[in-house]
């Protein structure tokens, strides 16, 4: 009886997708910009696809043209010199996680990359995609702002450089125009005595969208005792990742060992007004933000304390 059905897999292929669509995968950035200027809003730019294909799940037929950046080698390079690092927008999270230069100069960018999704996601997802997608929970974004990253935006007509903190306008909203591409991320090499800490809170260890995240980058003066510069940036507690500016006056110019961690934690909590959503309530986020600010300072104290003993 079973045999009457024959091969249960013989019918493949008749489920072919039929809706027409165009696809471009240029080798050069200039070609990509030409295509962009021609198709404008009609074309979808695809990098790693780990956000885009989730958004378009079950409605890929709505995309009438794709611009795939996979063949543009220049977008995959990570270059470093004495003053800065340039990270091509197509660099994957796995690259960020494993790059020796990034580990050395921007340890929390590397850690944030290693906290993203899963091996499968990190192998495909890119830094450029993470930025352009502009999720309030985007894992790389607080660290990028804290390290004073700048983004290079290019179009067929012009190029510009913009600071990370000026780039994000709201959830999924940025200043990027439809004819523009984000080509690279430029980050200055941090000062000698720079310490940093990254904490991401969520419900599990993998494949987790942050409920709250915090990036703290702090540099000391030459004496390695007085704070010269600090940035505390938060994710998932507002419509964009952002810096708590009020922290600066409480920390810059002070002796690190005289800081009141509790007070600073409270200050961070007082400066945020998160929302309730599926990942956490407002109250939970406020309390946790305060705690992770304190934890971040404690972590820095540990490494800084070691350098004091040496």
């Amino acid at each position, binding site marked *: 009886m079973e045999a009457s059905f024959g091969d249960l897999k013989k019918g493949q292929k008749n489920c072919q997708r039929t809706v027409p*669509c165009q696809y471009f995968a240029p080798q050069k950035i200039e070609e990509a910009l030409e295509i962009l200027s021609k198709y404008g809003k009609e074309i979808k730019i695809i990098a790693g696809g780990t956000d885009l294909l*989730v958004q378009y799940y079950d409605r890929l037929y709505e995309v009438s043209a794709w611009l*795939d950046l996979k063949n543009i080698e220049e977008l995959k390079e990570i270059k470093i010199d004495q003053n800065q690092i340039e990270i091509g927008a197509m660099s994957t999270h796995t690259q960020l996680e494993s790059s020796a230069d990034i580990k050395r100069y921007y340890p929390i960018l590397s850690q944030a990359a290693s906290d993203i*999704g899963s091996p*499968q996601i990190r192998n495909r997802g890119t830094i450029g995609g993470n930025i352009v997608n502009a999720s309030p929970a985007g894992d790389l974004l607080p660290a990028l702002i804290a390290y004073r990253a700048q983004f290079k935006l290019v179009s067929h007509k012009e190029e510009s450089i913009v600071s990370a903190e000026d780039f994000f306008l709201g959830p999924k909203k940025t200043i990027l125009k439809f004819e523009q591409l984000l080509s690279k991320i430029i980050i200055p090499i941090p000062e000698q005595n720079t310490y940093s800490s990254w904490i991401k809170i969520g419900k599990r260890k993998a*494949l987790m969208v942050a409920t709250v995240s915090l990036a703290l980058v702090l540099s000391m003066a030459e004496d390695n005792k007085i704070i010269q510069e600090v940035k505390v940036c938060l994710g998932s507690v507002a419509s964009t990742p952002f810096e708590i500016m009020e922290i600066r006056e409480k920390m810059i110019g002070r002796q690190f060992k005289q800081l009141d961690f509790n007070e600073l934690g409270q200050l961070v909590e007082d400066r945020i007004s998160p929302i309730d959503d599926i990942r956490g309530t407002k109250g939970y986020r406020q309390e946790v933000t305060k705690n992770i600010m304190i934890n971040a300072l404690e972590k820095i104290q540990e490494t800084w304390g070691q350098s004091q003993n040496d």
Partner: protein
Amino acid sequence: MTKLKIELMVNRKKRKIEITPSTRLIDLLRDDLQLTGTKEGCGKGECGACTVIMNGELVASCLVLAPQADGAVITTIEGLGSSDHLDPIQEAFIESGAVQCGFCTPGMILAARRLLEENPHPDEEEIKRGISGNLCRCTGYQKIIEAIKLSIARLSKSDSGKAK
């Protein structure tokens, strides 16, 4: 341009195929190439059932457009071993009782495979991280971790065997 010709190496075989650009890699593998060992559990990169190895890297084939895989070298579960000649990891999964409903198994085995290629002697934490993109709802993972540990022993034995 409705159809796009792409060429890729799947399980050591060269495949030339015409697809529409919005085809996902998982659909290409399952619908066009009849490689239904690659499973779809969520379609959003959360479950890992669709995991394949592409150009030496673990990817979720539901989050890759087929044209993105043009020119790629891909290994699916069908490329790992056959019933008469199982891969040591497949054997270890069987022996450790790491297979229940089996829906996560192809992706899980490929994740294990990739992990052991990169790091032949992972510790338990590294094993957990290596399979962190693959959900299993039946086993509670313990037996899967045991199977991977057993694979480590098997593979290092067969390597030293080769050296002799």
